C-alpha cells in the first residue's frame, strides 16, 4: 500500500458496531475517527480509538504455538498453522470417535460479532456443549423475551415510527457508557433530548443520575420485587393499557392475583426504595407513554433472573409499550435476514442437546449446558467433556469463583484458544492460535440481530501469521465437518449475505446494511408478519403474562420475587461476619471486561481497580481515598483501591470486574489479586429455569491493606 487513503470499516472493540474511518499512509495507520455517515453519527469511544495502540502492541500473539512444558508453566514453541489446526481438528475428531460429540466443548466470551461461527462449529460437529458466560449475560433476556412476546425486544430510540420514548427507565444498565445487547450509547443519549421522564433504577448515582427525574436506589438483587410493586400500582390504580391488555395479552387475571402479594409498602421494605417513589415511577411509566426500559446485567446475573426479567417484561406489556413507536420493538433485520441463522441453519443431534450437562435441570435454555455444573464435574473428575476449543473470552474472569474455574480447566485433557494476547486463560492452553484485530480483517459485523449489519474492512496487514477469527473457524470447520464449511472466507461471507442478493465485495463498499426510517415496521402483531394467523409468535399468539411455556416446563408461569441467596435477610448469621452488600458490577467505560488494561493510553486514565465505598463506611473502617482495601467474601479476598463515593447506600460496596495485570509475569499475570470473581460463588442456588447465578448481591467485609503500596 502506498499514498494516503481513507478506509471505511466497523469497530469491534466492544460488542462493536460503530462506523469508523481510518486514514492509512504507506501501510501505516495515521488517523482513526468515527464515520459521520454511519448510524452512530461519527461518535467513537476511548476503546475503539485506542485501537491504534492495540494493533502495534509488542505483546501480540503472532504465531501459532504449542505448549512444551507443563500446562500453565508458560513454555511455548512456535508451530505452523497446519500443525496447529491439525492438532485441534485431530483432537476434536479423536474425542468424538472415542466418547461422542458431547465430549467436545466449544467456547467463547461475550459476543464480538462471531457468535454465529461458534454456533455453526458447535452444530457442525454436533456437540451440545457451548461453554461461555451467556447464561449470566444477555441470554436470559433473549429467552424470557421469547417466552413472553415470542421475539426479542429492543428500545426504540430512533423515532422512525413518529414517536420517541417519553418515559425511559435505565434499569441497572449504564447504557450511557456501553454498546451492549443491541443498543448503542449514542442512540440512547440522543433520544434523551425527546424524553420527558428518565427513571434511574440503580443502587448507585450513575453518570445520568443528575438528568433523571426519579432515582430508585434499589437494594442489589431485589429488582423483581420493584417491578412487581410497580405492576401492583399500575394494575390496582387501573392505569394500564386496557385495550392492549384485553386484546393482546394472555393471563392478565392471574397476574392481577399474583401482584396483590406485592403492595408498595412491602416492596419498599424489600427494596429500600421509598413507597412514594415506587408509586411515582409506576404512574410515570404507565401514564407518560410511550416508554422503554433498558435492562442491564444485574437482573440477569442473579439466582432469580427468569422471573425478574419476566416481571419487567410484564411491566412493558401492561403499559402497552410493545411494538409501539417509542416503545420496545422487535426490529426487522436487513434483507440478509438474521445473521445468526448462519449458525442455526444446521442443528446438532437432538439427543446431544438433551443430554448436555445441566440441560435436564435448567430446562429453559433448551439444549444448552450449564457452565457451573460442567466446571464442577470437571473438578470432580467425572465429566464427559475432554476438550475445549475457545475463541476469545476469559472464563477466569467471566465465570464465578475463579479458583474453582482454574482447577476445572486444568482437568481438561486439551484446550485450544484463539487469542490476541497471552491472557491468563490462554496460558492454560495446549495450543494457542493468533487472531487478527478488526483493523486487520474482512468480516461482517452483527450483534443480536437488530436492524443493521456492518462491513469490517481490512485496513492494514495483520502482524506475523495472525489470521481473522472467521478464517480460523472455517479452517477448523473444514477439517472436522467439511460439508458445512467453505473453500475460502470470502465464499463464506458471500453465502452469509446471499438473501440480500449482494456479494461481499459489494457490501464492503456499501459499509453497512440497515433497515431504518420508513423501512422499519411497528405493530407487526396486527399483520401476518409472525404467521398467517397474526398476533405474536407465542403458543397463545398473545403476549404471555402467564407463560404457558414455563408452565409446561414445570416452572412458575407468573413472575415472583426471591430474596438473594446471600443477604442480610436470607443469611443473617453470615451477615454478622460479612456485613456489607457486595456488588461486583463496576464497569469502566474505556476497558471492556478483561481487555485493554495493556494499552497505555487508556491504562493511564485509571491504572488500578477501584472499589466504591460510601464515605461514612470508609470512615468507620479507617479507609481513605486511594488506600488499597481488602474485600473478603466467604470464597476469598481481593484488593482494589478505595474510591469514596457518596452516591449509594453506605451498606453497599461496588467492586470493578475482570481485573488482571498484563504487566505482571505470566502465567498468572496477577489474575487472582483484584479479580471480582474470586469473591463470587459457583455453588448456587441457581435460577431454576436458566441456571444463572447471583453475582451482584453477595456479602463481604472490607479492611485496609497494611503496608502494601502496590498491586
Amino acid at each position, binding site marked *: 500500500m502506498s499514498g494516503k487513503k481513507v478506509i471505511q470499516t466497523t469497530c469491534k472493540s466492544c460488542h462493536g458496531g460503530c462506523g469508523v474511518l481510518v486514514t492509512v499512509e504507506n501501510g501505516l495507520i495515521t488517523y482513526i475517527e*468515527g464515520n459521520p455517515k454511519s448510524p452512530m453519527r461519527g461518535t467513537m469511544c476511548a476503546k475503539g480509538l485506542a485501537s491504534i495502540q492495540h494493533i502495534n502492541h509488542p505483546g501480540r500473539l503472532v504465531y501459532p504455538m504449542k505448549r512444551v512444558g507443563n500446562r500453565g508453566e508458560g513454555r511455548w514453541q512456535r508451530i505452523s498453522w497446519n500443525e496447529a489446526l491439525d492438532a485441534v481438528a485431530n483432537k476434536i475428531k479423536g474425542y468424538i470417535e472415542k466418547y461422542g460429540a458431547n465430549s467436545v466443548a466449544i467456547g467463547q466470551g461475550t459476543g464480538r460479532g462471531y457468535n454465529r461461527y461458534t454456533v455453526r462449529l458447535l452444530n457442525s460437529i454436533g456437540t451440545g456443549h457451548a461453554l461461555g458466560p451467556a447464561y449470566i449475560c444477555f441470554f436470559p433476556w433473549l429467552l424470557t423475551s421469547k417466552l413472553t412476546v415470542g421475539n426479542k425486544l429492543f428500545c426504540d430510540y430512533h423515532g422512525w415510527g413518529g414517536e420517541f420514548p417519553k418515559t425511559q427507565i435505565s434499569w441497572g444498565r449504564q447504557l450511557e457508557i456501553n454498546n451492549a445487547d443491541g443498543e448503542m450509547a449514542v442512540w440512547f*443519549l440522543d433520544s434523551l433530548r425527546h424524553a420527558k421522564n428518565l427513571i434511574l433504577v440503580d443502587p448507585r448515582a450513575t453518570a445520568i443520575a443528575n*438528568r433523571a427525574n426519579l432515582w430508585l436506589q434499589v437494594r442489589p438483587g431485589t429488582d423483581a420485587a420493584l417491578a412487581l410493586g410497580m405492576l401492583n400500582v399500575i394494575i390496582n390504580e387501573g392505569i394500564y393499557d386496557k385495550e392492549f391488555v384485553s386484546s393482546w395479552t394472555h393471563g392478565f387475571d392471574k397476574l392481577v392475583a399474583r401482584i396483590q402479594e406485592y403492595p408498595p409498602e412491602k416492596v419498599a421494605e424489600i427494596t429500600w426504595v421509598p413507597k412514594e417513589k415506587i408509586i411515582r415511577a409506576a404512574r410515570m411509566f404507565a401514564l407518560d407513554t410511550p416508554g422503554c426500559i433498558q435492562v442491564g446485567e444485574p437482573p440477569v446475573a442473579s439466582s432469580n433472573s427468569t422471573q425478574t426479567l419476566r416481571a419487567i417484561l410484564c411491566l412493558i406489556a401492561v403499559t402497552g409499550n410493545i411494538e409501539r413507536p417509542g416503545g420496545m420493538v422487535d426490529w426487522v433485520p436487513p434483507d440478509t435476514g438474521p445473521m445468526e441463522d448462519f449458525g442455526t441453519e444446521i442443528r446438532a443431534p437432538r439427543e446431544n442437546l438433551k443430554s448436555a450437562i445441566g440441560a435436564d435441570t435448567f430446562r429453559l435454555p433448551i439444549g444448552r449446558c450449564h457452565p457451573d455444573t460442567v466446571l464442577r464435574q470437571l473438578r470432580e473428575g467425572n465429566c464427559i467433556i475432554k476438550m475445549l476449543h475457545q475463541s476469545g473470552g476469559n472464563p477466569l474472569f467471566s465465570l464465578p469463583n475463579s479458583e474453582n474455574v482454574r482447577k476445572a480447566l486444568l482437568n481438561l485433557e486439551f484446550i485450544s484458544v484463539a487469542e490476541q494476547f497471552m491472557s491468563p486463560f490462554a496460558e492454560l492452553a495446549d495450543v494457542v492460535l493468533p487472531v487478527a484485530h478488526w483493523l486487520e480483517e474482512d468480516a461482517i459485523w452483527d450483534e443480536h440481530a437488530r436492524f443493521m449489519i456492518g462491513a469490517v474492512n481490512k485496513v492494514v496487514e495483520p502482524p506475523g501469521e495472525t489470521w481473522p477469527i472467521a478464517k480460523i473457524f472455517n479452517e477448523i470447520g473444514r477439517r472436522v465437518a467439511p460439508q458445512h464449511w467453505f473453500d475460502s472466507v470470502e465464499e463464506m461471507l458471500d453465502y452469509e449475505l446471499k438473501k440480500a442478493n449482494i456479494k461481499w465485495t459489494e457490501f464492503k463498499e456499501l459499509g453497512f446494511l440497515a433497515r431504518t426510517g420508513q423501512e422499519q415496521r411497528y405493530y407487526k402483531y396486527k399483520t401476518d408478519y409472525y404467521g398467517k394467523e397474526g398476533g405474536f409468535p407465542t403458543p397463545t399468539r398473545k403476549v404471555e403474562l402467564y407463560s404457558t411455556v414455563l408452565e409446561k416446563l414445570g416452572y412458575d408461569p407468573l413472575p415472583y420475587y426471591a430474596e438473594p441467596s446471600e443477604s442480610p435477610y436470607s443469611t443473617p448469621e453470615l451477615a454478622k461476619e460479612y456485613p456489607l452488600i457486595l456488588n461486583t458490577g463496576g464497569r469502566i467505560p474505556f476497558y471492556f471486561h478483561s481487555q485493554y488494561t495493556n494499552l497505555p493510553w487508556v491504562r493511564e486514565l485509571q*491504572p488500578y481497580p477501584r472499589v466504591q465505598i460510601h464515605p461514612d463506611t470508609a470512615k468507620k473502617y479507617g479507609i481513605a481515598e486511594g488506600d488499597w482495601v481488602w474485600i473478603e467474601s466467604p470464597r476469598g479476598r481481593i484488593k482494589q483501591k478505595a474510591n469514596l463515593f457518596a*452516591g449509594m447506600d453506605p451498606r453497599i460496596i461496588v467492586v470493578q470486574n475482570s481485573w488482571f495485570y498484563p504487566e505482571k509475569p505470566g502465567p498468572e499475570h496477577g489474575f487472582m489479586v483484584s479479580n471480582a470473581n474470586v469473591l463470587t460463588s459457583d455453588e448456587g442456588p441457581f435460577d431454576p429455569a436458566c441456571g444463572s447465578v447471583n453475582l451482584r448481591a453477595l456479602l463481604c467485609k472490607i479492611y485496609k491493606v497494611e503496608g502494601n503500596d502496590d498491586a
Partner: protein
Amino acid sequence: MRKAIFRDMGACVNCKACIIACKVKHMSYPYAGLSKLAKPKGRNLINVYQSGPEIRGDRVYQSFVSIACMHCEEAPCIRVCPMSAIYKHTQTGITLVDRGKCIGCKVCLWVCPYGAPSFDEAGKLVLCDLCIDRLNESKKAACEAACPAAAIFVGTPEEVAELQAKKAVQRIERGIIT
C-alpha cells in the same frame, strides 16, 4: 469567525472518549512499552473532572466536565508569557503556542483560571488548538466528533448561545430543572 467552545456539564457521561480522540489527533502514537503501564505520565490536553455526587433530599448533584484550553478572548496566559510564546489566531481567536519561543517557565499555569496548560516531555507548553486544521476542513474538532453525549460543541459564540437557549426551552417544556 471567532470560535467558542461549549462543554455541557449536565450531559457529559465521563466516558473519556474525548481524551483519547485528542491523543489520536495530537500525539504521535508509537507504542509506549509495557514498563510504562500503570504509571500515569504527563497530563493530557483535555481532562475530565467530576464534581459530586452529593445527595440533597431527592436531588443528586453530580456532574462531569471535560476541560481543555477555553481560548479566552482576554487570555491571561498571553498577557503574562514573558516570551510572547502564546498568541491568538487572528480570524478564529484560537489560542496558539509558538513552541520555539516557549521556555517552559509555566507562568501560564499560575494564571489560567481553568488549570488547562499541559506540558510535553521537554517541559514546554502544549494547548488544545481546537483542531484548527479540522475546522478549516469543515470537520468537527476530534473531541466533539467522538463525544456520544453531544457534551462538547465548537462554534461561534452566537451558535453556542443559540444551542444553550434551545436546551433551556426543552427543559422548560419538559418541566425538568437541571
